[in-house]
């Protein structure tokens, strides 16, 4: 088992640039999830690794060996698809057996491995059923077993859970992670569900229009987004017009807020200041801060989402507060709003969003 490496992979479909220049290093035994909006090139990246599409330029290697031009059936990749992909004419056993048979493995060994794989995905005893006799979740388990049976060098998963309902999705997600860790198999998982991506992966790659915006561990993606795009796409963000006042300060409607994100900006530049709802706090109206009014409170158990309208900017922002702190707040109440800028992100106004070096 070995790592998967994309080197400046570019892929276009006619005028559409599906991948601009992808560099990605999935280390041996690691699970990376690719996250991004629809059409950003996630599936294309996966299909290039699988050999269903070929890169216009660049290279793909597995364990150091160049596979860029190798046809799909010689690549030894395990793939699970978004749509149900079991062969409808074959039983579960024969589906799992399919790849073993093409590898000309002896019958006793094949039988043993099929049973082993079905056990692994907790479907022992279902071997004689046909795909149409299984639920969606079970079908995807079989698809996983089928992909793993060939002992692939890399496991590729293209939104394997997106056709399933929420509960099954959660259970199967945990199971994929368990099996992946157990087998120590190098895995690339594509998803557009951020919770799924952050919850399952060692590292998350956030993509946007054919580019990798950031590749980092889940916590870092959330707390130190490399670009405004990542910041907005993962979790939610408040957006405040601001002016850069120094290497570590911006001014929001007369208030100076300290933020390391101003370092690369010119003093006096007009920007959008992006702040997570957790970094917004509320105090009594007579305290220092941005004056505003509570517009709504939504109780969510441990936390409460508080909607706030700032007087000067007339923008609506949200704060995630501890429910006990928020208990005295009510719609219409005058408050003073504080912003913690340490995790804030700046975006130029008007100009295109700045792209950080993806592999930095």
């Amino acid at each position, binding site marked *: 088992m070995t790592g998967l490496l994309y080197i400046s992979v570019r892929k276009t479909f006619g005028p559409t640039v599906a991948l601009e220049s992808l560099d990605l290093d999935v280390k041996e035994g690691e699970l990376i999830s690719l996250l991004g909006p629809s059409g950003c090139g996630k599936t294309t990246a996966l299909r290039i690794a699988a050999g269903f599409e070929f890169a216009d330029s660049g290279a793909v290697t597995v364990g150091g060996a160049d596979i860029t031009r190798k*046809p*799909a059936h010689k690549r030894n990749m*395990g*793939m699970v698809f978004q*749509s149900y992909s079991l*062969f409808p004419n074959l039983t579960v056993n024969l589906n799992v057996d399919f790849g073993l048979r*093409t590898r000309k493995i002896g019958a006793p060994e094949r039988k043993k491995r099929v049973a082993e794989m079905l056990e692994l995905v907790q479907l022992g005893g279902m071997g004689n059923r046909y795909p149409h006799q299984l639920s969606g979740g079970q079908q995807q388990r079989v698809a996983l077993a089928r*992909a793993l049976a060939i002992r692939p060098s890399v496991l590729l998963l293209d939104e394997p859970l997106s056709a399933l309902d929420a509960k099954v999705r959660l259970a199967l997600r945990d199971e994929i992670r368990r099996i992946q860790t157990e087998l120590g198999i190098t895995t690339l998982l594509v998803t557009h569900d951020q919770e799924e991506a952050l919850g399952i992966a060692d590292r998350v790659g956030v993509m946007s229009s054919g580019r990798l915006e950031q590749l980092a561990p889940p916590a870092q993606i959330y707390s130190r987004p490399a670009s405004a795009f990542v910041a907005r796409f993962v979790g939610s963000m408040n957006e405040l017009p601001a002016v850069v006042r120094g290497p570590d300060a911006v001014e929001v409607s007369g208030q100076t807020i300290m933020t390391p994100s101003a370092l690369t900006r010119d003093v006096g530049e007009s920007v959008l200041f992006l702040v997570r709802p957790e970094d917004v706090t509320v105090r009594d109206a007579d305290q220092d801060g941005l004056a505003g009014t509570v517009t709504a409170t939504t109780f969510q158990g441990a936390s409460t989402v508080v909607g706030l309208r700032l007087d000067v900017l007339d923008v609506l922002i949200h704060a995630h507060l501890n429910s006990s702190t928020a208990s005295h707040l009510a719609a219409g109440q005058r408050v003073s709003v504080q912003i913690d800028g340490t995790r804030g992100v700046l975006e130029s106004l008007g100009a295109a969003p700045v792209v950080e070096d993806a592999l930095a």
Partner: protein
Amino acid sequence: MADINPLAPGLPLAIDPEVGGPPTAPIGGIPPRAGRPIARFGRLGPNLVLILCAVFFLAPLLALARYALQNVPTILLGRSTLFKKWSLGGLTKAFSDKQFGPTLTLSLKLAVGTVFLTLALLLPTAIWVHMRLPKMRAVIEFVTVLPYVIPAIALVAGIVVVKPHARWFLDSNYSLVPFYVILALPFTYRSIDAGLRAIDLKTLVDASRSLGAGWGTTLRRALVPNLRTAIISSAFLTTAVVLGEFTIASTLLKNTLPTFQAIYVKREPQGGYGLNLLALVVTTGLFALLTLLTRKRGSRKSTAVVAVAATAGQARTLAP
């Protein structure tokens, strides 16, 4: 189609929001769809159409059957003689003609050859088009209808021009096979196309290839079994076309079953028409079987359409 009541299949939904009624959600959460008026019509309308069609088709067939199978002078074929002197004599006489056996054998051989050549050409092409050139599907579909739109006589005119240069080829009985492949194309392509539409072709191919199967294995183990119905239909349709084609066979001076029928009907009108009737019945039987076979799997509607079209084509080519 009318909404199906999930609690009592066969009954239309009782609540019609357009007319009024309890302001509840539709039963089973199925939103009301368009097409309700047909349900109001009841079953009388469609049944009436069906009956009219049946009469339109069956009346001439009955006349044909009476002429071929009743030993009653034509002039006396009235209501009073309906049950008199039915006999298979004309048919058995036709069967025992020394030309019947060889021409039937040749036609069946041609049918088998045509089926195999059709599948060998069409299956990979249709799969390729579905996988790689989905935009070309409409164009290809149009091209495949041409043999149906352009009369066979045009093809014959072409043959006549080429004939002196291609004796070595046209002299063989099996030179008919390529022509029949073309003639059957409107039906066979549609049937394969419908079969491909009914499966998730791309995913099945990708899955198979990622499991280490090359194109050959993928075709054999992942696709053909799932296209079984489509392949069987196209084989049936091809057979029907081959067993009904007269124009080209007679131009090329081949002794196939239809050319034998055409000659025999002049010599022995009663037995000749008996043969024609039998051909129609067998063809219809084939299609009935086909419809039954395909009923459980998705592509029934298109198969039925194709079957009707083919029967019509068959009847057209049969007309002496």
